């Protein structure tokens, strides 16, 4: 597997949210605005890249790995929890409004299955550099997924897209053109479930179409032979 494939697999083939259905809680809770989704993405990138790096450093040292292996899950959890605490403090210091709107979901990055999952499935038996690339790919894949959900929700719910702070895109003219008003429900909890449900269904439909096409092509190739 080349480095590029390693990076891209997190975004498309093994996307943590859309394909593996990991990390559902934050992806439903923080997608009320694009800004929150981006903030969550930054936090997850920081934690996942560093945790993958540190864990693969520990596990690629033979002596240390032998010592750690029987108690590896608690060790992973301590590493991840430390990094999450660092993120929490940094956000509290520099991004106070984001810290308030993400709230409880910053400490809850600790129990985000994506991070522990990558530590166990990839970082534990791969080289540090590859682990960093894998972590970056997975975190960006997760970020892309939650940004898609948040664009869907914020646009349908308010007609606005809050990118960062005061930077806001007003798309209400689309609603005006169609002579309807935004559906407030999409910014509420119910909207989160509906949006994610429809997005997952669209992805499943596209995947099924693609598979059908491939099977057809394979059949044609066989017939020609």
């Amino acid at each position, binding site marked *: 597997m080349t480095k590029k494939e390693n990076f891209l697999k997190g975004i498309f083939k093994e996307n943590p949210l859309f394909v593996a259905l990991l990390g559902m809680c934050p992806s439903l809770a923080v997608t009320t605005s694009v800004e929150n989704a981006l903030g969550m993405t930054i936090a997850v990138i920081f934690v996942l890249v560093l945790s993958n790096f540190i864990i693969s450093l520990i596990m690629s040292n033979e002596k240390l790995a032998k010592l750690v292996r029987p108690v590896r899950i608690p060790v992973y959890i301590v590493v991840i929890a430390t990094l999450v605490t660092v993120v929490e403090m940094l956000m509290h210091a520099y991004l106070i409004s984001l810290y308030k709107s993400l709230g409880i979901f910053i400490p809850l990055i600790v129990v*985000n299955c994506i991070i522990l999952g990558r530590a166990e499935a990839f970082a534990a038996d791969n080289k540090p550099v590859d682990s960093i690339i894998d972590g970056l790919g997975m975190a960006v894949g997760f970020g892309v997924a939650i940004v898609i959900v948040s664009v869907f929700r914020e646009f349908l719910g308010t007609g606005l897209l809050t990118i960062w702070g005061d930077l806001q895109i007003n798309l209400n003219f689309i609603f005006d053109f169609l002579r309807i008003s935004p559906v407030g429900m999409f910014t509420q909890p119910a909207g989160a479930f509906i949006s994610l449900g429809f997005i997952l269904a669209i992805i499943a439909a596209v995947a099924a179409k693609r598979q059908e096409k491939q099977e057809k092509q394979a059949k044609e190739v066989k017939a020609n032979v």
Partner: protein
Amino acid sequence: MSDFIAIAFSAFILQNIILTQFLGICPFIGVSTKRSSALGMGFAVIFVMLISSSVTWLLYHHVLVRFEITYLRTIVFILVIAALVQMVETFLKKVSPSLYKALGIYLPLITTNCAILGVAVLNISNEYNFGQMLVYTTFIGLGFLFVIYIFSMMREKLDRAPVPKAFKGAPIALIVAAILAIIFTRFGGLIEWIS
């Protein structure tokens, strides 16, 4: 007393842990395909949540605050919860094999259930005293059990429903959950009506 009732009602319905706070979605989607497993998971969550919330509350207020190391909250809480789940599992296996049989397979899943850590952190950030914490935790747990049980009954019916192919599995489950969420958020009107 009215204080306790308000906390209980809002924990059970208005701030329902699954449908409005989005904690514990993984078991909600994953373990709700059968009624019996939904019940088992629900009771296991109540059980572990009560123990872990009490322990973390006591630790936070009597150790972390006293030694001014509250910034270690996340690390201490997750380690305490992971250790507690292990202990509860071994303890149950020894003391009550029948209870272990009923809850046993759900216990390891609970360590990574964000509802447990989430409630432990919420108890601290809402600044509850010990009594309020107990009421809040109990009713959050009961709310979890209630919703996951209702949802599992719906999913048993969904299995036999003619759902479009792309919606099979998780997507239709999420859309059903959305309808439940609408119902639960509308209960807010009940409080306004009473007062």
